[in-house]
């Protein structure tokens, strides 16, 4: 059965950038952009843009707790939407997951994770992409290689 394809081309065109946090890097001035741009606003025609995969590491620049939202996101309420400043520079708007609203702080270190962004009603498509969660590098300093027996 054919359904309305409204939004599907837009969804499909941005899959790579949403799945992998792909942005643009200007090889002339070093600026990074997300979402990706074709032209560097600083260098204009002298700029040279290349695709870059961001590390997904960043900090919460500002945030808000959403208590009233559109129907598509109602199920997540209350949830946190933050402006995350990536280590590479660009600021991206994203939901902060795996923590309670009261745990989110400005300057908090976060890392990108892969989640469902929204689901169309009536068996429509599922849109996936990055969200951010608090960074936790605690596992890196653990003792490993210890036999338990």
């Amino acid at each position, binding site marked *: 059965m054919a359904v309305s394809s409204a939004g599907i081309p837009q969804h499909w065109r941005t899959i790579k950038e949403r*799945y992998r946090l792909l942005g643009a890097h200007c090889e002339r001035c070093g600026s990074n952009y997300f979402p990706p741009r074709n032209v560097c606003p600083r260098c204009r025609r002298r700029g040279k843009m290349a695709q870059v995969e961001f590390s997904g590491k960043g900090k919460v620049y500002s945030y808000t707790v959403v208590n009233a939202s559109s129907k598509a996101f109602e199920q997540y309420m209350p949830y946190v939407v933050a402006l995350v400043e990536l280590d590479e520079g660009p600021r991206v708007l994203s939901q902060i997951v795996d923590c309670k609203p009261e745990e989110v702080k400005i300057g908090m270190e976060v890392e990108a994770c892969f*989640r*469902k962004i929204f689901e169309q009603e009536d068996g429509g498509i*599922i849109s996936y992409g990055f969200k951010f969660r608090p960074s936790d590098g605690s596992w*890196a300093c653990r003792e*490993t*290689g210890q*036999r338990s027996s």
Partner: protein
Amino acid sequence: MAFGIVGYGVYIPRWRIKIEEIAKVWGHDPDSYKKGLGVEEKAVPSMDEDATTIAVESARNALKRSKEVKPGEVGAIYVGSESHPYAVKPTAATVAEAIGLTPNITAADTEFACKAATAAMQACLGLTKGGYMKYGISIGADTAQSAPGDALEYTAAAGGAAYVIGGGEGVIAEVEGTHSYTQDVPDFWRRDGAQYPKHAGRFTGEPAYFEHVINCSRALFEKLGTSAKDYDYAVFHQPNAKFPLRAAKALGFDEEKVLPGLIVSKVGNTYSGSSLLGLAAVLDVAREGDRILMTSYGSGAGSDSFSFRVTGSVEQKRRLSPPVSYYVERREYIDYSTYARYQRLLKG
């Protein structure tokens, strides 16, 4: 050249619900379930997590442990699950896109109850050893479904594990041999379009789990001329803590060879992720030269057994992404009403 596991990675969602909390809602006796199953709590996914997102997180962690693998060298990706978000539209294509392996790759979703991903590991082994490609990836990931109030609700959990398979210096666990054992057994099923699975109660034990897990392991021993005493660890599909320990005993394994890979008590039954998460927990602690037996089980029914020998590469590679114990301890408890909301048991 040695072929086997080049890298592995796991993921378990942050939320947990305790057996007591579920039992309270249904008026069941929590102690009889805790004792009977050997399970204390289970992992619950967030509303924005599903088998696809769990597969992606696991695969990213596996690739961190496989630095020598270049995107163009991975020729196949398979995702085994009972909870693929789409009936038609492959999970594996989304995962391949998310980890940057498209477009020159074959991708497919595999299904065989809880052993879909070990079947895919065998496929990857054949494709890489046969020289058709350098590496293949097999992922087991599930957000297991259970009808509210059903005995399955105490264990049906979420989690996953990904394995990069191939040959060469980077192999951390060589596959010494593999064997499979399959028969038509109606122990557990979900009809197309049905929301929750059905199971044949006690019938799931003797003719199903034990028949396949024990005989498959024994057949592999026979092939390789090994027995339980040749192995340092044994990992079995873990629908609860009792079944794997009983199978181990029947095969001649002491409990201490099974416990390092037995994580079901703290995370529940992660279905397609179950035996592979157990294997990952063992790889987190194993030493060069250790031998590991792993036998999966999928209802319907079948088992895949593998004999692994751990190499010296494991020590440096396992430091590169989080161990199973990190995810087991990264937990936050929720009550049944939050659980019901996360599992979408309440229709608004």
